C-alpha cells in the first residue's frame, strides 16, 4: 500500500520534470531558430551582419568623453564605452541627487508645519504629473536661454566661466605627492568605521550613550586636510581660458548634461518622496509612542526606531525608482547629451547600418545595469530585514 503511493508520487514528479524539460527545449529551439533565421534573412537581403564593426574606425566626434577618445583614432567599440560611461555618470549622480531630494521632500510632506507640508505636496503633484520628456526640454531650453552668450560670460570669482556653452571650472591637476592625501582619506574612513562599530557595541553592552559623530567628522575630513598641509598642497588648478570661439581647458560641464541631470533628479525625487512618505507611515505610531514612553528624544526616535523600520518598506519601491531613472536617462537623445543610446544606438547604428546587432547590445547593457542595481538593492534589503530570533 505504502509502496504504491510512493511510486505514484514518483511518476507524477517524473511527469512534471519531463514537461518542464520539454518546455525548455521548445523555448530554446524557438530562440535558436529565430537567430538562424535572422542571420539567414540578413544575408539574403545583403545587409552586413556580425560584430566585425566593433574594431572599425569611428570617425565621428563626441562632446563629452570620460575616457580618451578621438574621431580619427578611436573605434566603434571605444565609442560604445564612452556612451556607456556617460550613461552611468548621469545615472549615478541622478540616483544620489534624487535620493537626497526625495527623502527631504518625503519627510517635509509629513511635517507638522502646514506650509512646508503643502509645498512638498505641491511639488510632488506638479512634477510627477508632467511627462519627463517635456520637463527635460523645459530644463534644456531654460538652461540655454537663461545663460549669457560666450562674450557676456559670467566670470566666476574662483576663476572660470558660465555661459550657454556650459560651466567651466578650474580643473585640479594632482602632483605625485597627492597620493598621500588619498591614503589619509582611506585611513580616516577605515578608522571612522571601526570607531562607529566600537561605539555601537559599547552602547549595546553598557546602555550608555556614546556619541562619536564629531570624532568621525574629524577622522574623515581632518586627516586628509592634515596630510594635504604636510605634503605642501601638491595640487595645482588649470584655469579655463577664453578663446575666440570657446572656453578652452578647465573642467567643462555641458548644458546638456546639466539639464538631463536636473530633469532626472527632480522628476524621480517626486516619486521617491512618495515612497519615503509611505514607508514612514507604514511604521505603526505605537512604535513612536513606545519610544517616547522609554524617554527617547524625538531625533533619536526617528533615527533608531522609525527609519530602520521604514527602510524595509522603502527599499523595494526605491529600487524601482532607481531603475526608472537609469532607463529614463536614454531620453538624452532629445537634447543631444551623448549617452549610450545617443552615441551607440544613434551614430554607430546609423553609420554601420547594423540595427539588429546594435540594438541587441544596447538592450543587453540596460538589462545588465538594471539587474546589477536590483541585486545591490536586494542585498541591502536583506541586510535591513527583520532578524528573526
Amino acid at each position: 500500500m505504502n509502496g504504491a503511493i510512493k511510486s505514484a508520487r514518483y511518476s507524477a514528479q517524473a511527469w512534471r520534470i519531463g514537461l518542464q524539460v520539454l518546455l525548455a527545449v521548445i523555448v530554446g529551439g524557438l530562440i535558436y531558430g529565430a537567430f538562424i533565421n535572422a542571420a539567414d534573412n540578413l544575408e539574403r537581403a545583403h545587409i552586413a551582419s556580425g560584430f566585425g564593426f566593433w574594431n572599425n574606425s569611428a570617425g565621428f566626434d563626441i562632446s563629452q568623453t570620460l575616457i580618451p577618445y578621438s574621431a580619427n583614432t578611436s573605434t566603434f567599440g571605444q565609442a560604445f564605452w564612452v556612451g556607456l560611461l556617460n550613461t552611468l555618470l548621469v545615472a549615478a549622480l541622478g540616483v544620489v541627487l534624487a535620493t537626497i531630494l526625495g527623502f527631504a521632500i518625503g519627510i517635509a510632506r509629513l511635517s507638522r508645519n502646514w506650509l512646508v507640508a503643502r509645498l512638498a505636496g505641491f511639488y510632488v503633484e506638479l512634477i510627477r504629473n508632467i511627462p519627463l520628456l517635456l520637463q527635460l526640454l523645459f530644463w534644456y531650453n531654460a538652461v540655454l536661454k537663461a545663460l549669457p552668450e560666450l562674450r557676456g560670460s559670467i566670470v566666476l570669482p574662483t576663476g572660470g566661466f558660465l555661459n550657454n556653452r556650459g560651466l567651466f571650472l578650474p580643473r585640479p591637476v594632482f602632483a605625485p605627492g597627492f597620493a598621500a592625501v588619498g591614503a589619509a582619506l582611506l585611513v580616516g574612513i577605515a578608522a571612522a568605521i571601526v570607531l562607529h562599530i566600537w561605539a555601537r557595541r559599547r552602547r549595546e553592552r553598557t546602555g550608555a550613550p556614546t556619541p562619536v559623530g564629531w570624532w568621525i567628522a574629524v577622522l574623515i575630513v581632518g586627516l586628509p586636510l592634515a596630510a594635504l598641509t604636510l605634503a605642501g598642497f601638491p595640487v595645482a588648478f588649470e584655469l579655463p581660458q577664453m578663446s575666440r570661439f570657446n572656453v578652452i581647458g578647465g573642467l567643462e560641464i555641458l548644458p546638456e548634461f546639466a539639464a538631463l541631470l536636473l530633469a532626472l533628479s527632480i522628476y524621480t525625487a517626486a516619486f521617491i518622496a512618495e515612497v519615503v512618505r509611505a514607508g514612514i507611515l507604514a511604521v505603526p505610531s505605537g512604535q513612536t509612542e513606545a519610544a517616547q514612553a522609554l524617554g527617547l528624544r524625538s531625533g533619536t526616535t526617528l533615527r533608531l526606531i522609525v527609519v530602520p523600520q521604514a527602510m524595509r518598506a522603502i527599499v523595494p519601491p526605491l529600487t524601482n525608482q532607481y531603475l526608472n531613472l537609469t532607463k529614463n536617462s536614454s531620453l538624452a537623445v532629445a537634447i543631444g547629451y551623448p549617452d549610450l543610446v545617443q552615441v551607440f544606438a544613434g551614430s554607430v547604428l546609423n553609420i554601420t547600418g547594423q540595427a539588429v546587432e546594435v540594438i541587441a547590445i544596447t538592450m543587453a547593457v540596460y538589462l545588465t545595469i538594471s539587474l546589477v542595481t536590483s541585486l545591490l538593492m536586494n542585498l541591502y534589503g536583506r541586510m535591513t530585514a527583520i532578524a528573526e530570533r
Partner: protein
Amino acid sequence: MKRIATALSLALLLAFSAQVARAQTLQTVKQRGQLICGANGTLGGFGLPDPQGNWTGFDVDFCRAIAAAIFNDPSKVKFVPLTAGNRFTALQSGEVDVLSRNTTWTMSRDTTLGLDFAAVTFYDGQGFMVHKSLKVSSALELNGASVCVQQGTTTELNLADYFRSHQMALKTVTFATADEATKAYDSGRCDSYTTDSSQLYSERLRLTNPDDNIVLPEIISKEPLGPAVRQGDDSWEDLVRWTHHAMLDAEELGVTKSNVDEQLKSANPETRRLLGVEGQFGQSIGLTNDWAYRIVKYIGNYGESFDRNVGQGSPLKIVRGLNALWTKGGLQYGLPVR
C-alpha cells in the same frame, strides 16, 4: 524612440519571417493601390507637409512622379516621415517602397545596407552656416569652434574629417534630428551649424533672424543625393531610375507640364519615344507606354520640379549649379530612352 521601434520591428521581421519580401515591389504597390514613400517631413523645399497635410518638396515630387507613372494619379502616395536615424531601417524592413529623403549615396551604404541607389537627383555638398556677429568669412577660420550637427549623417563624419585634415580643434554637439540641431544653433549653443548646403538654405529661413546668419563659401564634401530602393528587386530599381531620367530627358527636349499634350504630335523621334508615341518602353518596366507622359503631365520635367521646390520659384532660391543639365554646364545627364 521611433528609431528603436523600427529597429525592433526589423529584428522581429528578420527573426520570424520565412523570407523578407523584397522582389516584386511593383506588384505589391499596384495591388495596394498606393506607393509608400519615405520622405523627410521637416525639410522645407525637399519634404514637408503643409498645414493642410499636403506634402510638398523636391523629394516628394519625385515620389509623386513614380505614382503618376504607375497609377496615372500623383496623389496615390502615402508619405512616411523618416529621420536620418530610422530611414534605412524603414526601407530594409519594407515599411516604405522607396526612400526619397535627401540621402547621400556612399559606397558603404550601397554595399552593406541591403539597398541600392537608383539615381542622383541632386548634387549637393556640405557647407557651414555661422552667426554673422562672429565676423567669420571662411570655414578655415573656425578653429576651436562649436559646431552643431545631426547624427547618423555623412555630414557628421565629414565634419570630423575636415577639421582633422586642417588641424583645427573642434567641439561637436550632436543632435538626433535636424530640427533639434537647428534650434540649438539658433539659441547660441554652437558657433556654426553644418549640413548639406541645400539644407542650410532651407534651415536658415526657419531661424529667428535669418539675416543674422550667413552660409560660408566652402563646400567640404560631395553629397550626391538620390532615391534608394531595397537591393534585389532590379526591375523596381529600373523603374525608379528611369523616372528620374525621364524627367531629365523631358527638360532637355523642352517638354514641359504645359506643352506636353502638343509635344505628343512632335516629329522629334526622341520626344516620340519618351512620350510613348513610338516604342514599347513603358511595358519594359512593367508600366504603360505613356508612363513618361504622365510624369510630365502631372509633375513637370526636372527643371520645373527644381524651380518650383528649391529654385528661383521657391523661397530657397538655390541656383542650378551642378544640377543644371549637362548641356548647360551641369552634371544632370538624362540617359537616352531607346
